[in-house]
């Protein structure tokens, strides 16, 4: 795979100082990593949250409730994924009022998730940041059909041009209408490889509350050149651990993430 640029681009700044989500010792945070595959790709972010909440209720887990007249389970999810994308990085935090034994609990949750969703990993997090405070980067693998309007070389040259520029403004459609965003500031790293009629792109993008680039927006210049995404997969979510990038369980990345998709 041709690495075009591995230097850190303009980032979102260091993570906020560590704040414990659970204010009292009586709460226990169980962090889970879920996978969306096959038909699960067509479960939207809101539907995913509801499906997970129902799974938890079926199991009658000791989840803490929000205050107020309409109490809800205290469950928080990482950043939303576009509908149609698969993912092996759907993280969520479950705030529990008790601490059931971890492996049995994980086994139980994994067994009761609906088809299309599965549990990859999970662990109690004792001194962590909330997912929304922690997450700053997301890695994606996109398989782009090259199309008839541009060659693979031209698409790679376009990618190179984006990474070498100071700014790369594009227009994108938001709920509030057309808006110009700077693509460059949201792309940390990217690499491309040609595989048959497809261009395989691995993207390491800004994600989270400070700066966020949607993968579908990152692809706009390529789509305008006739490329069409065949598949979009989120491989990981990351935040800062000291000077390094780490996943939400604290596993430090020694080099920038290799995208691994189950089944490849």
């Amino acid at each position, binding site marked *: 795979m041709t690495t075009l640029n591995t230097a850190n681009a303009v980032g979102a700044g260091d993570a906020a100082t560590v704040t414990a989500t659970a204010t009292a010792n009586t709460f226990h945070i169980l962090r889970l990593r879920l996978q969306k595959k096959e038909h699960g790709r067509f*479960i939207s972010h*809101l*539907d995913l949250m*509801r*499906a997970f*909440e*129902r*799974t*938890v*209720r*079926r199991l*009658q887990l000791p*989840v803490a*409730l929000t205050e*107020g*007249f*309409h*109490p*809800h*389970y205290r469950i928080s999810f990482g950043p939303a994924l576009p509908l149609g994308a698969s993912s092996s990085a759907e993280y969520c935090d479950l705030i529990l009022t008790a601490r059931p034994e971890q492996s049995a609990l994980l086994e139980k949750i994994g067994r009761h998730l*609906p088809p299309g969703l599965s549990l990859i990993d999970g662990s109690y997090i004792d001194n962590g940041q909330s997912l929304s405070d922690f997450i700053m980067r997301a890695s994606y693998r996109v398989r782009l059909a090259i199309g008839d309007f541009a060659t693979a070389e031209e698409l790679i040259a376009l990618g190179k041009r984006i990474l070498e520029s100071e700014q790369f403004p594009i227009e994108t459609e938001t709920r509030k209408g057309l808006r110009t965003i700077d693509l460059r500031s949201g792309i940390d790293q990217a690499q491309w490889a040609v595989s048959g009629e497809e261009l395989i792109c691995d993207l390491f993008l800004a994600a989270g509350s400070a700066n966020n680039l949607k993968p579908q927006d990152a692809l706009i210049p390529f789509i305008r050149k006739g490329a069409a995404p065949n598949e979009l997969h989120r491989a990981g979510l990351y935040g800062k651990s000291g000077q390094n990038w780490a996943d939400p369980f604290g596993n430090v990345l020694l080099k920038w993430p290799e995208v691994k998709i189950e089944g490849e």
Partner: protein
Amino acid sequence: MAAFDVIGFTLQYELSYSNILYMLDLAGIPLQAAQRSEKDPLIIAGGPCTYNPEPLADFLDAVVLGEGEEVIVEIAELLRKLKQAGAPRREKLAALAGLPGVYVPSFYQVEYAAADQTLSFVRPVKPGIPERITKRIVQNYEAAPFPVCPPVPFIDIVQDRIALEIQRGCTRGCRFCQAGMVYRPVRERSPEKIKQLMDANICSTGYAEITLSSLSSADHSCIAELAADSIAQYGASGVTISLPSLRADAFSVALAEKMESSGRKSSLTFAPEAGTQRLRDVINKGVREEDLIDAVESATAAGWRSFKLYFMIGLPTETEEDLEAIGALARIVLSKARAAVSAAGAKGKNSVVTVTVSASTFVPKANTPFQWRPQDPIATIRQKQDLLRRVVRGRGIDFQWHDPETSFLEAVFARGDRRLGAVLEKAWRSGCKFDGWNEYFDFDLWQRAFAECGIDPTFYANRQRDYQEVLPWNHLSAGVDRSYLISEDQKAGQAALTEDCRTGECLGCGVCQTLDTQPSISKAVDTP
């Protein structure tokens, strides 16, 4: 779909009939039962509209009257055996006709009188076919199977919650209400059974809302304890409990308040159905103005600010005075609610009260005391709606009404006969579908279909029928005696009330004798 052995349709609403033809066509199944071959599935219908399925007689192989829990198993076992034996379609239909509660329309012959176009007779074409089909009920409601593991969709659907049926039937005896007549007798599930089903459903689905459904859930003799217990058990895990409809009285409001303990209250709906006490007595709707005011005052005190009042227009014996009284009642509700709001010292946005009046059009239904009564012609309904628009007005009052054409078509099919089959097919072929949806409903197409078939729809909707007339559904019984329906219709003429049979005394509607059963109430209580 065509690969199934049997396909079942629920006849929930007359205006869904065109969609049944549409679905059959999309599945590549011949529309007419007579044209189906050995390889085609059997098309069976159930549901409330089966108490007059005659307009669909051409399209249905069989119809099941009444409760399905037991008969559906009998049908499946019978058909499985016959399929294994390689029995032809005709033999399967004959076997189905032998099951109690199953009606096979093709085994009946109908004839019309040349003089007035009414039915001369409906009778079996061969021996061994019953002259009269009586609905089925489950022998033991408490033990009847209830789904505890329903499919749970990912997307946010309408009615995205557990609907737990806590009782069947209703004893209020409103004379226009088909459900109130055909689902008799009233049977309650015990609180223990309800809690057990609730638990099983929550554990299998994970739903956060349960509605305790029935025709009149506040009538369940244990509803107060049931509500309190369920909230105590599930409230802490974020599960909300709700009731589908409310009676207009303070008891029901207290119940709703217990369940909806939220800060912001949505609107409350009551159904007085008619504007004057006289007309409410005619339809045997046991709601008094005092009850309604009581309900509104307690609801306002509990925090509700928005009320919906449902009325029906075109009821038998209705006069202008009854319609004007709808406006007066809406104003009384508004002023009582406003007084209660200012007494509570509410200010600003929280002091704004709204009353929405919704007026639907009366549709006489088969197997009710009003089955002989005419529906008001479309022009009359329009005049009545004009009058209502003049009298139901003012700040804080909103008025909603329905297209009279829709209700007219509903009335035609609700009491239609087999001659409407041709109209239905023609209308569907000319493009009618989703008739229950305003954006699809095309009354002109329907009128053309009636004209082309030489059928006058007002014959079905707007004609006063004689007690002696052979009605298209005469051979189909919901268990309630014809003589009881007649006596109820006559009492309506005198605005005389009929009691609720929950209070103990049998009213002689005949359902318990016909079906060899009895009402089952968990706990004897004084009905409010």
